[in-house]
């Protein structure tokens, strides 16, 4: 078996003085979609931010595509092939939709073309000249994802892509994720919406107070419902 595309070991991280990650071990294989579940404030977002290198007060090990990421400066993380879609989406108000879309530089070949993206998200095409933050929440979420698809990133870190979205849009995003998977994209998904996650993820991690307390494949889901019920109130 080949080495995982993305792997962390003993990852710890701090916000100023508050210790948030207490040793996160996680691995993602190429082409796989994993999902990190957990209650509010357990450190899911922090895990993604730490892998991206946005949170730099960290120790432990992060390997991506065989490369040690701990010492890579933030602006080079993307070039290694990691793409990040933040929880707050990060749409720029002073940029139009199209400018937002075109903003991230291409880091590798194999990204989607603009035409393909507009195919995937017809709403964006319609509104491509309006200011980014005038979009609805769902559209903003699509734009945030679309933005990364253009760059040729091999692995997407998605932070709660369904938060605050209507079910129909959630379904649309689910479709997009499945399409991406067919194209061989690797995805790390952080979700509170378990039902959504269950439809797209191959494997689950359960996070509690800054560590991974459980890990299981989607096939094992029925056996784990108890645990999830206890931990998440599912």
């Amino acid at each position, binding site marked *: 078996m080949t080495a995982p595309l993305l792997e962390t070991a003993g990852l710890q991280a701090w916000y100023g*003085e508050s210790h948030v990650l207490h040793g996160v071990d996680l691995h993602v294989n190429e082409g796989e979609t994993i999902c990190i579940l957990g209650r509010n404030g357990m450190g899911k977002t922090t895990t993604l931010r730490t892998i991206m290198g946005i949170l*730099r*007060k960290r120790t432990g090990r992060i390997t991506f595509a065989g490369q040690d990421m701990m010492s890579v400066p933030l602006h080079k993380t993307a070039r290694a092939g990691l793409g990040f879609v933040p929880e707050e989406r990060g749409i720029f108000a002073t940029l139009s939709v199209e400018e937002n879309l075109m903003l991230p530089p291409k880091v590798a070949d194999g990204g989607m073309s603009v035409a393909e993206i507009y195919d995937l998200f017809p709403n964006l095409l319609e509104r491509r000249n309006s200011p980014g933050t005038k979009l609805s929440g769902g559209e903003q979420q699509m734009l945030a994802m679309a933005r990364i698809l253009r760059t040729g990133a091999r692995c997407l870190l998605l932070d709660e892509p369904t938060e605050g979205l209507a079910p129909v849009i959630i379904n649309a995003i689910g479709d997009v994720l499945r399409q991406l998977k067919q194209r061989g994209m690797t995805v790390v998904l952080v979700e509170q919406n378990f039902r959504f996650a269950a439809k797209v993820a191959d494997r689950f991690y359960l996070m509690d107070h800054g560590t991974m307390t459980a890990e299981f494949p989607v096939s094992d889901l029925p056996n784990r419902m108890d645990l999830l019920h206890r931990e998440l109130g599912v």
Partner: protein
Amino acid sequence: MPDMAREIAGGKSEPVPAEHVAIHPRAGTVQLALLAVIAAALLLAPQFLYPIFLMKLLAFGLFAAAFNLLLGYTGLLSFGHATFFGGAAYFTAHAVKVWGWSPEAGIGLGVLGAAALGLVMGAVAIRRQGIYFAMITLALSQMFFFFCLQAGFTQGEDGIQSVPRGTLFGVFDLSDTMTMYYFVLAVFIIGLLIIWRFVNSPFGMILKSIRENEQRAVSLGYSVSRYKLGAFVMSAALAGLAGGVKALIFQFATLTDVAWQMSGEVILMTLLGGIGTLAGPVVGAGLVVTLQNYLATSDFPVTIITGVVFMVCVLVFRRGLIGELLESSFGRRFFASRRTRE
């Protein structure tokens, strides 16, 4: 707007280490002995050094200490303190020279005038914070500069010259250099005591807490802007005290004292000596004044050195001389209680 440059550089500065250094049992004795030495030195200094130079040093020491009252204890960087220093110099000089007031009354007018200017400038400036505050004070003081350039009583470019020193309380003839020196020394000590008291008072405690966490202070019911304004006026008044005395020492009040370069100079003194320490600004003033004196008759411009010292201080030496000393293991043992700012 997010604070990009700072975020890029990796968040707010390092957390303060929680070290506990034992205070040396004889720390109090050492502090007292040091004070005694300084007092003796100040009393005897005019026997060995040029008294005018010493007086200049004391006046600027007081000015810097007054400035630091604001920067060091409320975290407000004023780039306009020349207004209070120079404004008071004008008021005092005018009162003494044109109205024939006694020196103490003249200085009193200088202090009051500076306080009034402080009230006006402060009321406008404290509407904004940080760099905005600095720029606004700078611009307002430049406005005052142009006012002084044009107002008749300041004599424009000529300045108020040949200001008589007069007779203090009708008893002490200040035209005698030694008498003048001891008068300035007395004012200096009184000024520093006022600052010390101010900082170590209930009011000072509130100022300190405002600097540490303004939002929290508001939520505890403190009207932050009034406290800041209070500190601003106090600092202005003390800077005015220094300015009034300066006018009598040099018998002169000119545009140099209200120019923005003077505001820059006092910042340098404070930065060099140590922001937020009681002795730092005085030491910094001493260094700067000595340097200026040394270079006054050479043609090497002081500003080059001033500029470079500024850059070095900001880049590697932010605690200043006294700050570094207090932070050293020696300082921590003997002066731990004196530290008021990280």
